[in-house]
């Protein structure tokens, strides 16, 4: 197979103990009904009552503005997510496009588009490639399988979710590495003419966020994706990242570095531990009780998970394990879902978590979805000024600060690139022959050319 000479993103040196920080916002705003037994807010909350347009506009504006601020604060990356009912944030790609346009140099991670909601994976590859070209190679992409509720909304058979997804990941990787056109003959997609336009500046760094299904871990290891361990207590995150490393080593013959492992936690910083708790506690409980809660048939639609994974979830007494929505504030912190405290306390927590997981990347959830703006900004400013620099080389610069953008930013740069077009653009004029259209408006230059 011939590969493009496309640059592959290699963010951050491995050798030092540097951590890369992504900024992720919960973005919800807490105006949903309190969830009771056997209910969820994720699938059929009526939009007539809960999607008032002005309120959606306020939510989305706040969400995007706080992410854009992440560039000035010095995060290494800002993240757009994708959530459907009851949230308005239904396209990670559209929001990533906005974030790229509103920022200058920071990396934007779309984590990410639910590939199975696209007609085919190549359509998503096109959007990724276009954003790469538009942004000077500043896009990274997370490929989530999509939570169960997405399958209730989109008609895709959950039974086919993983098969389609796996084939899609392989096809996208291929479209970014192999010259087109090529013929794809898969179980789910048969695309006789795969021909990705535009070819990107950089093959984006692909992330695979997963709560720990065996299928996802395997896929991330096989295709050298950045494994983002999420939605589990610390104990499970540790075993999942261990399994990821072990799979990569034993089955695929390589050892993933720290920069191929990411994790995520809610972070809230204040002047003292007591003050931080006072500010964050109600919001953490709100999140646990309303957004961590769901019912099995929504989160595990039929066939969404393989039987081996389902046996791990329900077998061996796990069926009666305490559900996350019943977690107290203290349990949430103890299990590593959140770091809440003074800068010292939060830094200690982050160091411990990333050490245990061997993670080189941490997505900070700067807001769980219900905090007021002032509280978010106070915490993030303290985090950026008093925590982040501890995990960086002297001067505290983010990874993008010293990395040139791909492509050009000015007319003079574009000219200096001196890209030679592959063909002379010609039109055939009757009586004259082939004319170079670039000079056809000048009489003396309207002469026939040989090539074309």
């Amino acid at each position, binding site marked *: 197979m011939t590969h493009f000479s496309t640059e592959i993103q290699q963010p951050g040196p491995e050798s030092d103990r540097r951590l890369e920080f992504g900024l992720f916002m919960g973005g919800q705003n807490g105006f949903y009904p309190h969830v009771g037994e056997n209910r969820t807010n994720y699938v059929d909350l009526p939009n007539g009552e809960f999607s008032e347009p002005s309120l959606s506009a306020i939510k989305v504006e706040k969400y995007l503005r706080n992410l854009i601020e992440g560039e000035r604060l010095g995060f290494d990356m800002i993240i757009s997510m994708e959530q459907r009912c009851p949230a308005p944030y239904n396209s990670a790609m559209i929001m990533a496009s906005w974030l790229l346009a509103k920022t200058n140099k920071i990396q934007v991670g779309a984590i990410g588009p639910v590939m199975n909601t696209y007609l085919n994976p190549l359509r998503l590859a096109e959007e990724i490639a276009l954003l790469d070209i538009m942004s000077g190679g500043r896009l990274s992409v997370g490929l989530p399988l999509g939570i169960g509720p997405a399958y209730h909304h989109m008609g895709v*058979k959950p039974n086919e979710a993983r098969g389609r997804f796996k084939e899609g990941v392989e096809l996208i990787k291929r479209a970014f590495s192999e010259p087109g056109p090529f013929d794809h003959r898969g179980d789910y997609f048969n695309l006789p003419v795969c021909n990705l336009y535009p070819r990107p500046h950089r093959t984006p760094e692909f992330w695979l966020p997963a709560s720990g299904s065996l299928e996802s871990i395997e896929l991330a290891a096989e295709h050298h994706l950045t494994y983002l361990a999420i939605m589990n207590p610390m104990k499970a995150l540790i075993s999942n990242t261990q399994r990821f490393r072990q799979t990569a080593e034993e089955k695929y013959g390589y050892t993933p570095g720290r920069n191929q492992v990411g994790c995520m936690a809610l972070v809230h910083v204040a002047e003292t531990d007591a003050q931080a708790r006072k500010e964050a506690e109600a919001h953490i409980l709100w999140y646990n009780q309303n957004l961590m809660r769901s019912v099995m048939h*929504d989160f595990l639609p039929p066939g969404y998970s393989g*039987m081996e994974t*389902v046996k791990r979830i329900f*077998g061996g007494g*796990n*069926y009666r394990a305490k559900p996350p929505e019943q977690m107290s504030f203290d349990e949430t912190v103890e299990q590593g879902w959140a770091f809440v405290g003074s800068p010292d306390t939060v830094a200690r927590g982050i160091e411990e978590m990333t050490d245990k997981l061997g993670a080189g990347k941490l997505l900070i959830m700067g807001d769980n979805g219900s905090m007021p703006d002032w509280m978010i900004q106070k915490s993030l400013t303290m985090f950026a000024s008093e925590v982040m620099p501890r995990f960086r080389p002297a001067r505290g610069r983010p990874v993008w600060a010293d990395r040139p953008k791909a492509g050009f930013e000015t007319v003079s740069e574009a000219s200096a690139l001196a890209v030679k077009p592959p063909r002379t653009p010609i039109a055939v004029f009757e009586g004259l022959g082939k004319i170079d259209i670039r000079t056809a408006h000048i009489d003396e230059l309207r002469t026939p050319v040989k090539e074309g």
Partner: protein
Amino acid sequence: MSEAKFADYREASFIEAGGVRTAYRRQGSGEPVLFLHGAGLTRRWFPFYEALSKHGDLIAPEHPGFGESDLPDSLTDFTDMAVHYADLLKALDLEAVHLVGHSYGGWIAAEFAALYPEKIKSLTLIAPMGLRPPPEVKMADMFRFAPQDGLRALLGADGDKWLPYFDEGDAGAQAIQDYQEVSAFGRLTWNPRYSLKLETRLRRITAPTQIILPEHDGVVPVEIGQRYAELIPNAKLVTLKGASTPTEHLLSLQEPQRLADQIAAVI
């Protein structure tokens, strides 16, 4: 015989049907009657089976992925399912059978009968799924029932009294079994939840046919059964009334004897 695991549990026999290990229970003598179950209540021999087995040689297999039958990766649509049952008849050395299907099993029976009309001696569809109801008819989302709502939809306002019957003891094991079965069900029925092809194929059925509906159905709209009766030549439409309470989708639990007797009308 091993100790009962839960109410009406009975051990299965197994047979290879086209390479698929298929669990089934069989009792009675006379005309062969093949019963195709709905999306649940597997691994049981319940009073309805007992009553029906008095009218013939009752064979009650478990669909691939249900109960203890295997589910091959290659089985992904109703044609594959119909082929599986043709394989089962061959394995059992049966030329033709009286075919009875309830709910999801009714859909499978209709597909089988339309593809293999020569293999059925009679057809009985009980509260069948499989056709598109008209837009004004509300259709429950079968994949989103909360447990207590599910029982009421299946068995009416006093559905809760049946709760012990559904209890299989070990909650974790039951959750795993239920997930396996609903996954097998969803593989064929998630999207679309009806077949437009059936509408044009049902005309091929020539055997005596009856559609048996409950008085009320909170799961599968009775309009679907009525549409079957319009599309299958000479089909008879019967509403089975309850002795004390109105019949619902699981009329096989509510009225086992009367339902078995009604089926026998075409055997």
